[in-house]
């Protein structure tokens, strides 16, 4: 998860993202950020999320759980 949080921080252009941070609260959280995250998840974790999947996700930790559950299936 540490690596995942670091990659998220890069996309969101902030020094750090914590697992409890709410994604929608970041000023850079828009459709470009969502696409960049989708690309990052595909390249690094082999998981393909859709923009609609992000509607159910609140925090960075929630997103990681979603990614893990897709990796298993």
């Amino acid at each position, binding site marked *: 998860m540490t690596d995942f949080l670091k990659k998220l921080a890069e996309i969101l252009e902030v020094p750090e993202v914590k697992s409890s941070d709410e994604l929608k609260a970041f000023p*850079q959280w828009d*459709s*470009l950020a*969502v*696409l*960049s995250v*989708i*690309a990052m998840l*595909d390249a690094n974790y082999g998981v393909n999320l859709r*923009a609609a999947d992000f509607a159910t996700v609140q925090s960075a930790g929630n997103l990681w759980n979603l990614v893990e559950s897709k990796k298993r299936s």
Partner: protein
Amino acid sequence: MNFSFRNKRISGVLTVVPANERSFLEDMKNFNAPEARSLKLMEVMGYDKRRVVSEGVCISDLAVFGLQNLFSRSLLKPEDIDALILISQTPDYLVPPTTSVIQGRLGLKQDMLCLDINQACAGFVIGLIQSFMFLEQESIRKVVLLSGDVLSRKVSPKDRTIYPLVGDAIAITVVERDSGESSIEATVKMDGSRGNALSIPAGGMRLPCSPQTAVLEDVGDNNLRAKDHLFMDGSAIFNFVQTEVPPLINALCSRTGRDIYSGDYFLCHQPNRFMLQKLADKMKIPHAKMPNNVVERFGNSGGATIPMALTINVADHLKAGSARACLAGFGAGLTWAAMLLTLGPLSFCELIDYP
């Protein structure tokens, strides 16, 4: 679905782009987004300049201009055109077909076949397959394959998911028989169940154009778009390309015993630089072998982008000699298609401006 052909070749490619150029920095003024985020979009996606037609210019105008250019330079004789195919989703009219309009405007012979094909992103590959099939007939010795769109006329200036990447163009590709033994292998897949990811909701018979379909609607993220406008689900298309295109190309190579890494170029449909870089990374192909610079210079013009990628990157190589290429198109339909063939030497390979 797999296809195999022998003794066919592309003999020349001419791409025609409107002289009128727009820049992202100009386009950005219409977006409801902070300037910093728009600039980030430009950097990440790879947007810069694009060519768009002036008001009222149609795809037949670009085609007629280009064909007359070839006729005037004796690179093509009108009477030699046995089949004319147009790959486009922006016809001049619903009726008559745009290839018939072009045939009429140029006074081409009656003893020929004209065919409009409603396709775009994967359309150049589909059009080549159709061209090769026609050439199997004794009566058809030369096919002119036109591919392109004037989609700038169908996008919302207030929709930054699509406006900055669309360009207009037509490519004219001459396809004929070849005495050599080289084989051409292709594969096509279709999935209409996901087709709504790339669509123009109004304007067909399902939902005709009306004052209501022209109304700009808030579609989220501060983008405005009408039902008359092109819609693209960016993340769905991204996932589609990443999950479907690598296996398609890998299967084509293994079926035909080719090593994917031994080819010279991957000439893909150009949705934008970002998607092509991610696709190249996924397939472990060096970016130099998969050109991705069409959109930042000219915009995405649908079925014209594969010939444009060829024209602006490898023209010199293909006029002097030949190269082994993998063509790949993916998008509207949804359709995804790939083709392995040897390209060149070409009698002509260039880009001209439509003034």
